[in-house]
């Protein structure tokens, strides 16, 4: 008889909520009750990657019937084992309750119902440390298809036709980027996976690397084949030790199975992969700074052109793709570009993963088709604002992004629509704020971040962000006048236009967008200050 499995989420959030104690308790119960011998079904526990609804952690899913138990305590475990696993009866009192209804199936919980999981297809379902489980879910099939049946140009055409755009921020078409590197003749090319997820409030890349590392290895190998690279690097930030660990295990497994290294799957294609750990510098998420860091230098950006696709790592053609972008490659090859391009909006295809956090009832990773509205994400999936308070604004795209006020809640989110209101999809950090938050203080928070993380190479960013921060602090201290506000806006425009890299060019966005939608809050602080004088 097949093993009955209990999936315990072992993502960082669940572990810190006590997942390991829950796992140990299950194991203890199984030993105590001699379940292996007394019953024909063997019960194993898989440590799965991140399931998604992090605020319900620790969570367990009974794989056979997909029953979901959230916010577990160790004392709940014996009941689940006795009643559910032995007698086959769902433990009603431990089910998650939503609007007076007990939810049994994981797919039916409010947080999951509206999601469409492509990039997150395996996270929380497979054990990231077992390559067999990835293989069972058609893992490495796309790589085999590519190596046996497709030319590099056909692979690139497929990715181009899918309409996939970079998920790291700027939204550049992935297939087009690959074609630039393919066209460059060179004895050596590189593929880099950018896993330097520095945007505070975003954690989708961490979850994919922790929960489904093979999908990234497979995608990078396909990318290597497409552009003619035989070496890849995954650049992971030092703050993600579990992601580094799971990725290294997965690389070893792929190498031992002939799916990575020399002569992959018996072909004459060779691809090697190395993990490089960052050292705490936000600017290294910028392509040229990331390259400098892998080269062992200070992570300072350089001017583009030349673009990395022409002259990147050690001067060779290099493609840098974000984790979530790569997580879409395998499904595109397996299901075809038409399938992928049927999802999403006219210019933004596929899905986007958002890391929803802040003042909402449920937080965690939400993957929805492009074009989903903010209202659906916040009020339907995340359950609305916590503690009976009112929605004030959503901050999207982190320090490079903007705030979205309630009048734009029905905006269909894609690259273009967000750009129109001065925000960006960015990496997908989505921090929801209730009525109690001061928007001027939120702007100050982000400026404090960019000022601190500015690498110091160019003056507009190094000095400009510092001066903007000074003005914001002055405003918050009630010591500013209306001239300061004019100076703040002028400075913001200059920094946008003259900074060397994306960090500086986008640093003023949080200020400009709060100024656009919440100008009254700035003015109130200033009027008060003038009255005092």
């Amino acid at each position, binding site marked *: 008889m097949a093993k009955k499995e209990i999936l315990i989420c072992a993502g960082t959030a669940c572990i*810190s*909520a006590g997942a390991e104690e829950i796992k140990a308790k299950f194991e203890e119960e199984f030993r105590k009750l001699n379940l292996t011998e007394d019953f024909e079904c063997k019960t194993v526990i898989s440590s799965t990657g991140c399931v998604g609804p992090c605020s319900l952690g620790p969570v367990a899913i009974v794989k056979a019937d997909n029953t979901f138990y959230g916010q577990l305590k160790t004392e709940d475990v014996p009941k689940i084992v006795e009643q559910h696993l032995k007698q086959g009866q769902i433990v009603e009192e431990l089910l998650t309750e939503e609007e007076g209804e007990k939810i049994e199936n994981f797919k039916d919980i409010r947080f999951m119902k509206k999601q469409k999981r492509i990039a997150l297809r395996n996270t929380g379902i497979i054990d990231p440390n077992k390559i067999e489980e990835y293989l069972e879910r058609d893992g490495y099939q796309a790589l085999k298809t590519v190596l046996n049946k497709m030319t590099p140009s056909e692979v690139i055409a497929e990715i181009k036709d899918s309409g996939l755009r970079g998920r790291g921020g700027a939204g550049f078409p992935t297939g087009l980027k690959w074609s630039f590197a393919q066209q460059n003749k060179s004895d050596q090319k590189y593929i880099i996976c950018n896993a330097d997820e520095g945007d505070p409030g975003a954690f989708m890349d961490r979850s994919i690397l922790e929960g489904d590392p093979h999908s990234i290895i497979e995608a990078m190998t396909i990318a290597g084949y497409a552009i003619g690279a035989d070496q890849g690097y995954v650049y992971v930030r030092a703050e993600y030790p579990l992601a580094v660990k799971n990725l290294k295990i997965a690389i070893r497994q792929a190498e031992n199975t002939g799916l990575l290294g020399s002569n992959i799957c018996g072909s004459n294609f060779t691809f090697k992969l190395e993990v490089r750990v960052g050292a705490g510098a936000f600017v290294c998420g910028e392509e040229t700074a990331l390259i400098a860091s892998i080269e062992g230098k200070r992570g300072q950006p350089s001017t583009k052109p030349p673009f990395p696709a022409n002259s990147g790592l050690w001067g060779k053609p290099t493609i840098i793709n974000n984790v979530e972008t790569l997580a879409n490659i395998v499904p595109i090859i397996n299901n075809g570009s038409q399938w992928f391009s049927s999802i999403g909006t006219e210019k933004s295809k596929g899905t986007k993963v958002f890391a929803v956090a802040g*003042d909402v009832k449920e937080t965690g990773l939400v993957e929805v088709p492009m074009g989903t509205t903010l209202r659906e994400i916040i009020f339907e999936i995340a359950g609305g604002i916590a503690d009976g308070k009112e929605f004030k604004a959503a901050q999207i795209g982190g320090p490079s992004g903007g705030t979205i006020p309630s009048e734009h809640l029905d905006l269909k989110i894609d690259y273009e629509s967000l750009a129109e209101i001065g925000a960006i999809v960015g990496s997908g950090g989505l921090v929801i704020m209730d009525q109690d938050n001061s928007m001027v203080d939120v702007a100050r928070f982000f400026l404090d*971040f960019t000022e601190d993380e500015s690498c110091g190479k160019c003056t507009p960013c190094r000095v400009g962000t510092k001066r903007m921060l000074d003005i914001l602090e002055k405003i918050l201290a009630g010591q500013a006048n209306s001239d300061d506000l004019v100076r703040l806006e002028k400075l913001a425009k200059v920094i946008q236009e003259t900074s060397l890299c994306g960090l500086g060019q986008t640093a003023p966005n949080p200020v400009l967008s709060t100024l656009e939608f919440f100008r009254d809050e700035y003015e109130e602080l200033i009027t008060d200050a003038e009255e005092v004088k």
Partner: protein
Amino acid sequence: MMAAIKLSELDHIIEKHSGKRGNLIPVLHEIQEEIGYLPTEVQRYVSKNLGVAMSKVYGVISFYSFFTTEPKGEHTIGVCMGTACYVKGAEDILMRLQEELGIKTGQTTKDNKFTMTMTRCLGTCSMAPVIMIDDQVHGNLTAEKVTEIINKY
């Protein structure tokens, strides 16, 4: 005073990476993991043995916030100052820690037990506000809970 560092004990790390391109950062990571920090004598040793100019070694160490030239306490407390934590009151947590330990971020307690640092987003936003002590994340914090946690160490 810290015990003197036997530089030759770092040779296995340097040898493991020697000849590889871009090996400076991985080497510094592993040395810091082993001895806790990167003082001048270690920097000089790495410079000589990897054939990288001392100015470059120091340049890299001073650029990345993860590297430190000062010895750290027994435990490192990282206070998350990411957006979600900030919205959920990370500043109160930081204030309480400063009161409890009598140090500011970047400093180490007199008994050498705790070093406090500020970190940018640990990616556990659903449990905001959070702190990380060594490799352990503590979430859903209140100022009271912070005191409880610190007392356990």
